[in-house]
């Protein structure tokens, strides 16, 4: 059975054990393309299942991919120790999942998030936090999938202000079919306002 969280009535049809194995393999290689495919798969499933635990694993996978893409991090002498810690945490996550120990599973997810945060703080160039940035970026993707802005932000634990700014930089609004123009909407306001027009 592939249920991930302690809400056993929540039906998540995704092979988490296999997914975590793939994350470990592709993190060790490293294969950023495959990690990207995994985070996309997790995101889509998390949306369909409205499942925070799957989304949390997606955030971790996304952030790991981002860490791996930064040479100033992976070429740092500290990286070897950090990556061992990450793999060890991923192995624990898998074991807790197999044992159906969902409380420890979630705690270990938090732990790996902390490792990523600390690594980014210690070795990264930006004052913003990689985990938060990942959450914001993924929330904008979730919005792209058709969920409302608030729903996307609450699912990812993202900040609306920042997600709006990311959305504004994408082509999403330009790809949508406009069914009412600005003129139509202004006409509506004009028709119902308090202004007296001659």
């Amino acid at each position, binding site marked *: 059975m592939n249920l991930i969280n302690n809400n056993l009535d929540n039906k998540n049809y995704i092979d988490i054990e296999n997914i975590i194995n793939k994350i470990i393999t592709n993190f060790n290689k490293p294969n950023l393309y495959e990690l990207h495919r995994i985070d996309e798969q997790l995101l889509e499933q998390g949306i369909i299942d409205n499942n925070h635990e799957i989304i949390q694993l997606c955030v971790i996978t996304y952030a790991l991919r981002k860490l791996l893409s930064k040479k100033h991090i992976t070429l740092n002498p500290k990286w070897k120790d950090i990556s061992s810690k990450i793999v060890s945490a991923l192995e624990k996550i898998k074991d807790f999942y197999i044992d159906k120990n969902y409380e420890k599973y979630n705690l270990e997810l938090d732990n790996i998030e902390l490792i990523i945060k600390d690594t980014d703080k210690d070795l990264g160039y930006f004052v913003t936090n990689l985990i938060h940035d990942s959450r914001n970026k993924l929330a904008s993707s979730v*919005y*792209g999938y058709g969920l409302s802005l*608030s*729903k996307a932000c609450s699912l990812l634990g993202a900040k609306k202000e920042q997600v709006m*700014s990311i959305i504004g930089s994408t082509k*999403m609004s330009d790809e949508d079919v406009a069914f009412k123009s600005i003129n139509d909407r202004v006409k509506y306001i004009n028709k119902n306002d308090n202004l007296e027009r001659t």
Partner: protein
Amino acid sequence: MKIVFDAGVLIGFSETCLLSLFKTLKENIGEFIVTKGVKAECIDRVKNNMRFKLSAFRIQDQLDNFVFKVQDGSEELDIKTKRILQLTNSLFTINNRPLKLVDFGEAESLAMLGLCKASCLAIEERTTRMIVENPHALLKILKKKHHNKNILFLENKYLKFLEEIGTVKCIRSVDLIAYAYENRLLPSFMLEKQYLKSMLYSLKFNGCSVSFNEIEDYLSSFE
């Protein structure tokens, strides 16, 4: 006219330093209402975060100056919000399972419309707007993004949803700015067409769901 505002429009105006325009807009349009949930989202949730604290202060100032009326919560609002949330989150199914699209905040604003007899929702994001105005357009997006998985739109649920909210129109920040421009409600230095264009673009880049084509079409109507 009464307008219920979602958090996005307030955030959009704040991020583009246009909040001061709300006072004039309100004087000429009618009553501007926000729910307690929207207030919490724009102010309480971010006031301890230095990245957004200034925005929270600016919006608080609008509330302190009674530009927006913060509508108190009530049992009636809670019940209606839950009904709307239940309906909106079962309008579409994917592989026979309901697709949860909308969050409490948006549902509360929709519920508030009926309770305070407002007929207009100011909302920046597209999903709630599309649910209200054109759910079939949203269905197309969902099908495209979810690779045409078995996604269905349940018309009977939608009719019940419409019964709940009544006749509602949606506007965005760009529509309010365009209205202010056309009615010469902007300060004189903002009445240049280039200023209008920069405001519309700025709002778009801050997350308003409007396309470049829509903006350019609108601007070309003045040529």
